[in-house]
């Protein structure tokens, strides 16, 4: 299980996420971690991945990691650019997108996401940027993959605010709210991978990344985490994957910390 090379947990996270994307899939990309993973997939096994950013660029093929969803490079390399109304009303809402790829500040055990506020809404301790396109990506894409680093703060027992619905308070809630997509099928962190239990919709920890102790995972989760009976270990990065992500980051506009 040891990789031929050293790698960071952030690299493992991006690589694990990139592996989830198939060629020719239509993928709606949030900026930051998801954008890094999607562009990595495009350089590896999914050269024809169809990337959509909420700025309206369809089929963008950026030569380097964009800093923002509206970078000129995205617009110049896109198959076509549509308006923001078209992105949300004609492409997202009707459920045409295969995969929604989201980050968030916090996630709960039913894969609901918070990117709005820490503290209370009226008296915030930390005011986060807010919803953006996330509620519609989480609601309407055929499936959703979430990426965030795992810690007691980012995996709290209870969210102070639900920005985007995963599975609400459990089975049936997505249907109740009229959300048409299947919801989050996978949560990829720097420690491993979580997947919803098909019946209860509670997130189950199914894959441990190489070199990570399971105790670290449990400590980094604010709720009583369910671990899969058959816990697997994530395939370590290949040499090709590591080279690709390092050249991507080196050439990118993205500050290295993100």
């Amino acid at each position, binding site marked *: 299980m040891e990789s031929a090379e050293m790698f960071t947990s952030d690299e493992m996270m991006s690589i694990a996420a990139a592996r989830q994307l198939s060629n020719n899939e239509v993928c709606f990309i949030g*900026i*930051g971690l998801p954008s890094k993973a999607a562009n990595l997939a495009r350089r590896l096994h999914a050269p024809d991945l169809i990337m959509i950013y*909420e*700025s*309206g*660029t369809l089929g963008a093929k950026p030569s380097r990691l*964009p*800093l*923002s*969803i*509206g*970078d*000129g490079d*995205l*617009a*110049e390399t896109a198959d*076509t*650019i549509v*308006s*923001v*109304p078209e992105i*949300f*009303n004609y492409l*997202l*809402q009707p459920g045409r997108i295969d995969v929604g790829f989201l980050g968030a500040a916090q996630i709960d055990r039913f894969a609901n996401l918070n990117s*709005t506020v820490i503290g209370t*809404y009226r008296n*915030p*301790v*930390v*005011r*986060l*940027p*807010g*919803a*953006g*396109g*996330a*509620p*519609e990506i989480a*609601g*309407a894409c055929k499936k959703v993959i979430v990426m965030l680093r795992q810690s007691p703060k980012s995996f709290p027992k209870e969210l102070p*605010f*639900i*920005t*985007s*619905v995963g599975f*609400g308070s459990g089975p049936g*809630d*997505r249907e*109740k*709210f*009229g*959300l*048409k997509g299947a919801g989050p099928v996978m949560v990829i962190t720097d420690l491993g991978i979580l997947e919803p239990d098909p019946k209860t919709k509670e997130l189950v920890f199914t894959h441990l990344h190489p070199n990570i102790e399971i105790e670290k995972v449990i400590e980094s989760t604010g709720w009583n985490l369910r671990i899969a009976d058959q816990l697997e270990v994530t395939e370590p990065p290949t040499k090709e994957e590591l080279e690709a992500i390092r050249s991507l980051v080196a050439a990118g*506009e*993205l*500050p290295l910390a*993100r």
Partner: protein
Amino acid sequence: MMFLKIILLRFTQRDTYIVCLTAHFSIMSDRWFLQGFGVRPLRQRGSHLAPIIPLSEAIGSLLNDGDTVALEGFTHLIPMSAGHEIIRQHKTDLTVVRLTPDLISDQLIGMGCVSKLVFSWGGNPGVGSLHRFRDAVEHGWPQPLEIDEHSHAGLTNRFIAGASGLPFAVMRGYRGTGLDGVTPTVLPITCPFTGEELRAVAAVNPDLSVIHAQRADRKGNVQLWGIVGIQKEAVLAGRRSLVTVEEIVDELDPRPGHVVLPSWLVTAVALSPRGSHPSYAAGYYQRDNDFYIAWDAISRNRETFLAWMSANVLGGAS
């Protein structure tokens, strides 16, 4: 007050001057016209063509304290220079409407121009927080900031309703999220055909909508291309509209994917080269990503922020 401001406008053509006076009376008499239709009132017999006027004059005459002003541009073509002019003219008590508040709103908020923000994503794209926005929301500095918060889809549909002369738009969204309870411009609505419960979002019709575009011709026809975001809808939703442009040209030769706003849909045009910096104007200059990253440090505390604004905006340079 508004009357005086309108009269004081020194347009070069007498015709336009008369049109502006007429405008005032229709504000007085036809409130439904302004509210329901969201069209600028500057029209007599024969439509008004947008005059090309200096930016300072445009902000001075078209924007009043207490107004609702949309400043649109989705990462691209953000009307930064118009924001700076609003700051220089010390406009106050504004309601600012903008999907992605970005640096322009951070500056307006930090300089005390804004009492309410209507928005859907308030961060520094790819960098992190908008510190002035956070300081206002978290600590009420320099004054408390009321917020009317949406998803992108929700605020987009509010602009669409405004542009369409409708009081609301329908969407599938908000249900199950925290915003559904805290945002008064979102209400349930039931499909009369299927019984499905959806959400209605209230139209937004700003007193003034400002966008930045690549070019206008001498008649005031406007052309923009690249990422065009919600700009067309913002202009059409506005009771008045202002377009700042990189360049005034004789002819608008067609560009792939361009949006053309005919002059009769625009209230005024102002020339403002590099008016979008540190955002960008496709075909003119690139996004200044370094500045976006630098803004994090500049804006992180009140003193460095005020010093930067004083040196770079209030001093006249922008």
